[in-house]
């Protein structure tokens, strides 16, 4: 039986402005987490915020007898604001790992990651996971953010990828403009059967990536974000419109989808 469990905050720090890295001590069952999966998190015995919040898993690792789970997040509202004030020893309730993660690349694939802001979190976990498998030749990451201060998770991804290319909307670092534009300039390099593209970021970014790749025969998986109440497929609150299956649950059928299966609209991007 799975259950809603208590997890202790091991540490928390602000990495770049408004972005936090929280490390939780979790049961060893979390070691089975796959890149792209998520957890539902709630402050124990607290009705404010009321609902659990979904977060992508940034990393899971063991140290001695303990298992640790990392979440990298941006403060965007009431829930994340409360989380950002948690300190070592505070107790959270968490549920997971949940959802369907990324289809992992096979041998010899060129792995291309396209991240917008804190969307780097699940992609970084994927990169870590693939790095352990020495058969993979190359992991390339395109990272975008509003400005230099909002480039989150860069140190870790720099240590894993052979190439990291940066864009900022205000031009304060790297290519001035969007990460989709930056990737678009190199796209020809990744249109072979040996490339797999993975992306996570704000919906407008995913929509422009979708437009860019629409007529290309290249595999691209995206991790979507949506408001959720339960995270386990019951509330039907987190649905997204797909081209062939109508409205499907992000928590259960996703959060990772083939980019071509999603019907991008005003709401979802």
């Amino acid at each position, binding site marked *: 039986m799975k*259950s809603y469990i208590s997890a202790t905050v091991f540490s928390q720090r602000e990495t770049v402005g408004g972005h936090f890295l929280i490390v939780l001590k979790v049961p060893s069952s979390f070691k089975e987490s796959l890149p792209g999966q998520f957890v539902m998190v709630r402050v124990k015995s607290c*009705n404010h915020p009321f609902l659990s919040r979904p977060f992508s898993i940034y990393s899971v690792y063991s140290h001695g007898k303990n298992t640790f789970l990392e979440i990298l997040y941006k403060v965007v509202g*009431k829930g994340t604001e409360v989380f950002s004030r948690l300190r070592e020893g505070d107790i959270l309730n968490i549920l997971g790992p949940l959802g369907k993660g990324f289809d992992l690349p096979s041998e010899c694939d060129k792995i291309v990651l396209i991240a917008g802001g804190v969307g780097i979190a699940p992609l970084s976990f994927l990169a870590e996971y693939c790095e352990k498998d020495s058969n993979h030749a190359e992991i390339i990451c395109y990272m975008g953010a509003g400005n230099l201060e909002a480039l989150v998770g860069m140190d870790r991804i720099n240590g894993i990828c052979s190439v990291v290319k940066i864009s900022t909307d205000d031009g304060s670092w790297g290519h001035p403009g969007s990460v989709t534009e930056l990737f678009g300039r190199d796209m020809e390099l990744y249109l072979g059967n040996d490339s797999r593209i993975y992306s996570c970021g704000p919906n407008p970014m995913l929509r422009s990536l979708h437009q860019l790749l629409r007529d290309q025969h290249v595999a691209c998986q995206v991790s979507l974000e949506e*408001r959720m109440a*339960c995270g386990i497929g019951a509330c*039907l609150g987190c649905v997204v419109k797909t081209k062939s299956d109508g409205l499907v649950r992000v928590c259960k059928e996703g959060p990772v989808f083939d980019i071509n299966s999603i019907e991008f609209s005003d*709401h979802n991007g």
Partner: protein
Amino acid sequence: MKLKMGVDIGGLALKNPIITASGTFGYGEEYSDYFDLNRLGAIVVKGLSLKPREGNPPPRIIETASGMLNAIGLQNVGVRAFIDEKLPWLRGTNSPVVANIFGETIEDYVNVVEILNDAEGVAAVEVNISCPNVKRGGIAFGSDPILAGEITRAVKNASRLPVIVKLTPNVTDITEIARATEAAGADALSLINTITGMSVDIEKRIPHLENVTGGLSGPAIKPVAIRMVWEVVNAVSIPVIGVGGIMNARDAIEFLIVGAKAVQVGTANFINPGIAVDIVDDMRKYMTEKGISDINNLIGTLKI
């Protein structure tokens, strides 16, 4: 002390008074990884309509103070797919399965009931005349005593199963609707469904929900639910199932004390998927502590 937790709801025998509420428990299977469903008093499945429904476009939910608004719009697989694809799995549990049903016309409701009559493994029907999130049907039936009576009578005449009618709080006098449905033959009542509400994004100046309005649930609505259950218990003689904001055994016990014979746990399932059995366990503890050997001796014991 041997504890008796069984209750009878209009001919439906429950091993304990804890039921999972429609729309918060999927078709049961979603929760089977988290606890043994056999421990529930009953399971009410997601509202079923004659034809599958896609529901409302997203965003469909938003958190509010001690609660949430939803406007799912009765997304469901339809009654036939329920029977073919979901019910066989549910037959593996020994907790009674209650089919929540919904329609846009009285004929729709009757058709759904007739299809369910032939299905093995359904113990009762719960008639949803209280959904606030659909344009036709639902709440339109539940806020008019004459229509509520008509639909109850039609479903009751068509059904071989006990009929529970789920009432909306979005009315001036809920006892009027309760009496009308009792007079029309309802075997039991469940209340309350969600309270219509609205929430606005002040940055974009748009509603948080695509449907504009939604149904409020969670602890925020519990005092309203307790009050309405108390009013209805005093107005009718059929069993009443209390629903609204139950987060723990204490909340559930409040409903029993004001006279509900059973309760439904809803939004709390979203937060902790194992909560319903925690409530069963904690209710047992309360009974032991208070020396209550039969749960029926607790029901309706409010002192005023």
